[in-house]
């Protein structure tokens, strides 16, 4: 392979990231796994594309093409952080910027209760998306690559993390309506995301009737099938799939042996985690996923939990509720962090789960700065993201957009010159925070050291 200046610098950047977390520049998978075996991950996507002017990149004045949220287009009755502020023209009111105590940055009212945790969050603004199509934006935000001909071209961040650190977990990645993908080489079959529609379906899938046969009898069948798959793999030209099935049969035996069906019913989770709010209008359902994440991490069963909150695609009058949806979504993140604060780590004595849990929240893209004729906002190729992680610098807003058009602006010099930050850079930084060489999974993206804690 021809080594260009760009590839040289990219390798250098990956090595620097590994050194950053105390690992050798070409840390092996085993090194990465053993250095991070106490870490857990939650990935959340706001499906539909959120309006960043209501939280991360707030705009409360009409300037350029920007038409700020106001009492004309937003239902403010349920917004706890909305304080009326005058608009230059017209009878309607916009919002006062939310300036959290101890924070160095202002937010929009959509940030909700997460504003109280400003010393724990990292916000990335001005993410260059180069797309306004939902599937493209979702895939780009979670894999760092645009789809090719409609097909996902790389594995998603949860799969990358699981492949490095989750192969020996019973549930490497549980993916609830998250755009998880398993694409690429050098991936272990055990980390294929366990994709489900809702967490309650896990317990229904794992429940068994004792009326006809005993669990030991079914287990005997599964053990035999694992043997069959292994034997077939030995005869096969391409043994990967069959070897993977053999491993999955073994994982199933452990899953059913652990009586997880009782633990992971939706009702059981609600009872176990009353600190989460299941009655919220938009995030009552996803709160069960958050409860699942806490419970599964507490029992050291899972490495990554990925889930989605829907309803952000507000092209029309439903934009009136975008701010409330954001408030509930960030409220859910805040509740999750509080719950993790109150939960002891399963393997690190004296540590809280929150000290070893890393949360990444993304969306498809953001919404137009203009209000359209339907009183909503359409798709726009800019984006923001949120990280809550002890490995990231907190109380930081990184990246920027221009004041008149809300478009991403160059933020630093990358190996290919000055430019705005993009999703591949954020994902590469996320991997780099754990000493994983991003080049192993990603074609693009550079580790942004400014985002990482020293």
């Amino acid at each position, binding site marked *: 392979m021809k080594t260009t200046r760009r590839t040289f610098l990219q390798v250098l950047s990956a090595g620097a990231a590994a050194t950053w977390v105390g690992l050798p520049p070409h840390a092996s998978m085993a090194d990465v796994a053993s250095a991070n075996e106490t870490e857990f991950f939650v990935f959340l996507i706001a*499906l539909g594309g959120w309006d960043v002017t209501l939280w991360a990149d707030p705009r409360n004045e009409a300037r350029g093409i920007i038409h700020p949220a106001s009492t004309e287009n937003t239902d403010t009755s349920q917004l706890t952080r909305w304080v009326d502020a005058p608009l230059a023209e017209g009878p309607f009111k916009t919002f006062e910027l939310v300036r959290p105590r101890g924070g160095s940055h202002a937010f929009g009212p959509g940030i909700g209760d997460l504003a109280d945790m400003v010393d724990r969050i990292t916000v990335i603004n001005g993410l260059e998306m180069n797309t306004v199509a*939902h*599937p493209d934006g*979702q895939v780009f935000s979670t894999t760092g690559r645009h789809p090719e001909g409609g097909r*996902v071209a790389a594995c998603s961040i949860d799969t990358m993390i699981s492949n490095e650190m989750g192969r020996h977990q019973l*549930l490497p990645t549980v993916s609830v*309506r998250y*755009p998880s*993908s*398993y694409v690429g080489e050098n991936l272990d*079959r*055990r980390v*294929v*995301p*366990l*994709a*489900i*529609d809702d967490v309650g*379906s*896990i317990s*229904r*899938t*794992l*429940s*068994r*009737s*004792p*009326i*006809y*046969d*005993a669990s*030991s*009898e*079914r287990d*005997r*069948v*599964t053990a*035999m*099938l694992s*043997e*069959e*798959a292994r*034997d*077939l793999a030995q005869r*096969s*030209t*391409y043994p*990967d*799939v*069959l070897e*993977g*099935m053999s491993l*999955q*049969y073994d*994982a*199933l035996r452990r*899953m*059913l042996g652990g009586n997880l069906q009782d633990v992971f019913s939706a009702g059981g989770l609600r009872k176990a985690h009353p600190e989460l709010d299941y009655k919220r209008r938009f995030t009552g359902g996803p709160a069960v996923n958050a409860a699942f994440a806490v419970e599964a991490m507490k029992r050291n069963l899972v490495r990554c939990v990925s889930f*989605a909150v*829907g309803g952000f695609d507000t092209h029309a009058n439903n934009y009136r509720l975008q701010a409330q949806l954001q408030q509930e979504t960030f409220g859910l993140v805040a509740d999750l962090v509080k719950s993790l604060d109150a939960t002891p780590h399963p393997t690190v004595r004296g540590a809280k789960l929150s000290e070893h849990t890393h949360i990444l929240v993304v969306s498809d893209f953001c919404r137009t700065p203009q209000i359209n004729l339907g009183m909503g906002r359409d798709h726009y190729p800019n984006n923001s993201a949120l990280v809550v992680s002890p490995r990231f610098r907190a109380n930081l807003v990184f990246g920027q957009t221009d004041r008149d058009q809300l478009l991403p602006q160059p933020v630093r010099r990358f190996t290919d010159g000055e430019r705005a930050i993009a999703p591949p850079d954020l994902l590469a930084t996320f991997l780099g925070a754990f000493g994983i060489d991003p080049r192993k999974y990603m074609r693009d993206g550079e580790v942004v050291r400014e985002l990482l804690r020293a």
Partner: protein
Amino acid sequence: MRSLAAACLAALAACGAPAERVAAGPSAPLPEHGVTVEDTAPKEDLRLVPPEVYMRTYLRLFGGLAPLDAQKRARGADGAGLFDAWDDYVSALGFPDYRLDVPRLTQTNALMAATFERLGVALCDRALEHDLKAPKGAELPPLSERLVFAFELPHGAMDQAAFASRFDVLHRTFLGYPASLAPPERTARFFQLYRDIVAGHTKADPRSRFTPDEAGWASVCYGLVRHPEFHLY
């Protein structure tokens, strides 16, 4: 003009010449330069059957029922708890959800294996009840009307030969080819499974609705409906 006449004469002469004879075979055997075995190895990795194909096959095995009818039959009215609802399983089976841009799953995972077990157990248990357990005073359905177990159980102890002929029926039903063409140890492996289950079931919970022999055949059925060859092609 002169050259044209010469060409015509040449053409006429060629027409009158004797036809060239091509020998039917080589005058001497062709020398052998080596032997190459035909490469019949598959050139593509195994793939998971699409979830639609799995479901269609499942419904056909259940007697060609519509999805909701199969659900009703699998659930039964006896509180057995063998089946919930298709909605609970579709995402784990890998069906796409175009409302949410969720693509179809093309690889198996442990939860999918759990779902295959849940569905396979429901199918085998209900089929065994239908095929081999007649209600009191009623006859068993004729072989042609049985769902899965299209054979009679022997009256005495099951030896390997008696097992093999019946296993072949199930093997053809689920995997589509005779057991004799499968890897040689397969029949023996399933016979061992059958014997283990029969031996263990006598000590099992006496409230079980299956006799040891029935539990043995149900387990063989579980093994085939969850077999890697049932799910891959």
